[in-house]
């Protein structure tokens, strides 16, 4: 294994930890850079989830990925949820914690999806206040993930890349660059993925996500991509990933698969494809530093 500084994920590929694979992982101790869990799945008192995570955690670096903080929400953050999160992080001491630029709760109801925000000054103010609150409560810097979206808003006054850049500048959080989300959103909104990637605040990238999408069709017959996490990474996303690595240097890279979960060996094989690209990147040159866009 590559050495990693304490408190950071190694610059290797990781995969999501799935209950279907718990036994397999303990029996075979596969060579993988890290595991990732969704925080909310482990917000239970006891039972098999904690049993297996307690066994697996000491053997691997861990990324905890939240899906329920609703950082983009108009409501105040759910203080009880933030407390549960702090408890989980204290218990498992993950090398990384990340959340989404999205909302999922409103008026006390939780919608179990990552919903889009308009990129306005008001949203910016609210998102930054929420991230400040989270980072203060958790006493750590978090990573914020760029979203996959299916709609945009007439009220938006900033580009997504400008919005993210401003959030990072104001809060000091890092960027979790989801390359699949860049591709999906660009196709859905008629933008150029490469230009969008270049416009991202790349010097703040601390982790990369890769996933597969599902193909659908718009009512006018044009291509519409759904961020399904239910398929292998698509070729154009691998190509975009290679460009991203050239721009950011090697980054811990998660292969996401949350639906139609294949056997562990299939996920490990896909992770090794990412590792090949990471090794190529490491062999070429150190990461260039980028001046942040003004």
């Amino acid at each position, binding site marked *: 294994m590559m050495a990693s500084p304490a408190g950071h994920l190694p610059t290797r590929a990781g995969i999501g930890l799935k209950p279907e694979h718990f036994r397999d992982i303990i029996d075979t101790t596969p060579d993988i850079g890290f595991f990732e869990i969704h925080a909310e799945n482990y917000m*239970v*008192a006891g039972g*098999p989830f904690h049993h297996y995570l307690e066994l697996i955690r000491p053997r691997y670096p861990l990324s905890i990925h939240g899906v329920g903080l609703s950082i983009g929400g108009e409501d105040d953050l759910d203080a009880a949820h933030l407390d549960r999160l702090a408890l989980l992080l204290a218990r498992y001491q993950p090398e990384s914690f990340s959340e989404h630029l999205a909302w*999922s709760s409103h008026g006390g109801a939780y*919608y179990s999806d990552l919903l889009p925000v308009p990129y306005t000054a008001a949203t910016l103010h609210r998102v930054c206040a929420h991230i400040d609150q989270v980072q203060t409560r958790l006493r750590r810097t978090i990573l914020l993930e760029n979203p996959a979206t299916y*709609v945009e*808003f007439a009220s938006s006054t900033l580009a997504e890349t400008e919005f993210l850049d401003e959030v990072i500048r104001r809060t000091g959080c890092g960027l979790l660059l989801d390359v699949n989300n860049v591709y999906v959103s660009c196709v859905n909104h*008629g933008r150029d993925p490469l230009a969008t990637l270049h416009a991202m605040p790349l010097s703040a990238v601390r982790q990369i996500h890769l996933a597969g999408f599902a193909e659908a069709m718009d009512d006018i017959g044009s291509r519409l991509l759904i961020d399904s996490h239910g398929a292998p990474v698509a070729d154009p996303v691998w190509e975009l990933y290679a460009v991203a690595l050239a721009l950011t240097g090697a980054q811990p890279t998660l292969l996401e698969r949350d639906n139609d979960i294949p056997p562990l060996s299939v996920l490990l094989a896909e992770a090794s494809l990412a590792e090949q690209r990471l090794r190529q990147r490491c062999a070429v040159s150190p990461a260039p530093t980028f001046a942040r866009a003004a």
Partner: protein
Amino acid sequence: MQAEFSAALLDPAAPHPADILICGGADPAHRFGIYRNNVIVALIDALADSYPVVGSLVGEAFFRAMAREFCRQHPPRSPVMAEYGGDFAAFIDGFPPAGSLPYLGDVARLEWQRVVSWHAADAVSLTAEDIFHLVDDPVALMRTRWEFDTSLALVTSPFAIVSLWAAHQKESAEAIDGALTDIDWGQPESALVLRQGLEVMIMRLTPAEAIFITELRAGCTLAEAVLAAQGASPRFDLTLTFALLLRSGALLEYSIAD
């Protein structure tokens, strides 16, 4: 904006938020429909995971239609999805299209308890060795009060819920159908639900056993619980029932009443 957006997520008749803009001329309502679909499918799938036997009893199409109604009326109140769906049984009780299956709500109660027990706090159970000395002191033994594992619960029904549940654990559709034809679903049954190690067990209890455990959990002494159980059935077997509790790791602690 989010009030309008979230209201439209669960109400297919509501218009999509006015602020939505799609470049290239695609229909905003179609795009908004992706979120609508993502949300309702995620919620229905969560219920389907928690209630496989209810799903099997009514068939997938009926289950998903019933779950859709429930999810629209009762969206989750927390991002912890393991907690979602506890009031599905009460909804089923009041759902007229399911009226021909009067046991369905209680089967749902049993399945929900299974989920709750699955995630209950871990604890170290008493073993036979821990209480060996009590066997030699029957007077003290009868004055004991017991603390139970938090994963333990009883589900009692006027219907044969344990038999119905057990029939659905069989491997093939033929075996399930065969087991179901032998069930008199109007027979009252009580279930003991308990996590043992990493597995949740569901066991059928006699009415006397159910009373015994209910009394003990309510803080009665062993003598009081035995008396209540014998009131229900003179054939109540303390040794057998107590051995079952001990063997299955149901007991955490005891105290001896003055």
